């Protein structure tokens, strides 16, 4: 152990002799780890939060199809649906989209029902009359509107509809409600000029979760023009989206990763004359091959471990304290209304281990392998 300590001391002295070169490597290494970890932290945090939330979505959402497109669904389907064995609560949903030309933003308009009255993540309350509405924090900020303010919308027939804001969803629920405008069912049906006997879609609960796909098959048989969307499909979609978005950002940094890999490869395939001479001298003064390899191992380990830990700390602070300022524009896309980036710090230790084995281990190996070639050669030949 004492011998190892001396070798570490000597390795640190060797690194200090070429401090500019080693410091530059450490900075690049740390930056690379920081970027890769930031992407992994951010996508994992959002993916985990989204999947945890959407696990409470309806078991089946039933859409109606017409002419190859999504179409309003007749509410009379509910009678047939309730006759299917295993089906629980059936609820029609009334919702749609609205493009606000004032702010160039898209809102999602949704009808409130009795069960929604006791929602707690709202300042104020849910709308109760046809002239009231509740809006998401993003909508309120964009329109610079507060509680009890008027909220104008223009219908398809170019008529102005004036609603009073009686509730604003809290900022911490923005991931779900940022672009929502919630109003009464009658108000929404009138606004979109929807037929009274149709809804946007129908949600179907299934009493036994193991029977969901069987119930979906029965629904398809009863209504061949319908499209049941299952909760597990919905969750799979989001799983793919976050992997895809994370993948795109990783691709953007592929150049940096490739440059680093070339650098490691360059290091692995040869050492310079000065390093070769140094190994020769060490061998000549009595160092064993194993000692030389231990020395090179420590040289690589010191740089790689220090840089890896620094990169991880930078990534954590960037994502969870500075709300991923550098990555946010890529993830936001073209959205005008985007909830404030406040990822919950869900960390996957497995990802950190994978990153460690993909970066630190190759770097240390790249430090040891070429030195091994020099260390097994004759010291006299190496020094010449």
């Amino acid at each position: 152990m004492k011998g190892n300590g001396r070798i570490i001391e000597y390795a640190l002295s060797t690194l200090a002799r070429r401090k500019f070169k080693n410091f530059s490597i450490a900075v690049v290494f740390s930056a690379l780890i920081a970027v890769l970890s930031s992407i992994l932290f951010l996508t994992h945090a959002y993916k985990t939060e989204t999947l945890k939330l959407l696990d409470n979505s309806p078991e089946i959402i039933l859409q109606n199809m017409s002419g190859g497109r999504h179409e309003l669904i007749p509410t009379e389907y509910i009678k047939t649906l309730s006759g299917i064995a295993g089906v629980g609560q059936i609820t029609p949903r009334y919702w749609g989209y609205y493009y606000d030309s004032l702010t160039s933003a898209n809102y999602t308009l949704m009808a409130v029902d009795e069960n929604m009255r006791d929602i707690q993540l709202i300042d104020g309350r849910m709308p109760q009359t046809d002239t009231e509405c509740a809006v998401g924090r993003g909508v309120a900020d964009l329109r610079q509107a507060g509680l009890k303010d008027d909220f104008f919308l223009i219908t398809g027939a170019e008529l102005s509809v004036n609603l009073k804001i009686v509730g604003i969803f809290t900022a911490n629920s923005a991931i779900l409600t940022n672009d929502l405008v919630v109003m009464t069912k009658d108000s929404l049906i009138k606004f979109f000029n929807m037929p009274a006997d149709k809804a946007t879609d129908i949600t179907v609960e299934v009493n036994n979760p193991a029977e969901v796909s069987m119930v979906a098959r029965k629904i398809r048989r009863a209504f061949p023009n319908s499209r049941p969307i299952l909760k597990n499909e919905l969750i799979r979609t989001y799983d793919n989206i976050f992997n895809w978005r994370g993948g795109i950002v990783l691709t953007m940094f592929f150049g940096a990763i490739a440059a680093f890999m070339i650098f490691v490869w360059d290091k692995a395939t040869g050492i310079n004359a000065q390093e070769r001479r140094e190994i020769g001298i060490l061998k000549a003064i009595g160092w064993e091959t194993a000692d030389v390899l231990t020395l090179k191992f420590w040289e690589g380990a010191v740089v790689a471990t220090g840089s890896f830990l620094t990169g991880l700390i930078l990534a954590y602070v960037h994502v969870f304290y500075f709300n991923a300022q550098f990555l946010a524009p890529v993830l936001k896309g073209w959205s005008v209304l985007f909830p404030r980036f406040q990822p919950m710090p869900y960390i996957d230790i497995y990802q950190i281990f994978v990153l460690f084995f993909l970066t630190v281990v190759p770097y240390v190996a790249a430090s040891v392998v070429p030195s091994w070639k020099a260390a097994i050669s004759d010291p006299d030949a190496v020094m010449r």
Partner: protein
Amino acid sequence: MSKTRLFAGFIAIEAVVLLALYTGSLNRVNVKEPEMALKRKMVRVMRLTDVAFWTEARYTRHPSQADFFAPFQDFPSSVDHFPAGSIVPPAQRHVTR
């Protein structure tokens, strides 16, 4: 042994900081659990199917409801209908906002 101690100290400090950040994150997740429970309740009661991250198109606002089956499909990562789709920039108002 001064350099070894200095390095060991540096690594130890980094490890302690990381450990503190990790335990802090576990703690933060626990503290936020009641808020998460309220959000889960919101999803259940309002029968929400998607998160409000991307509001630029129907298929980004509600990816789970996107029409994977329709002709001229619109869904995340679908093949662009026109080559121009990959080179036309966002409208100026989106860029300046």
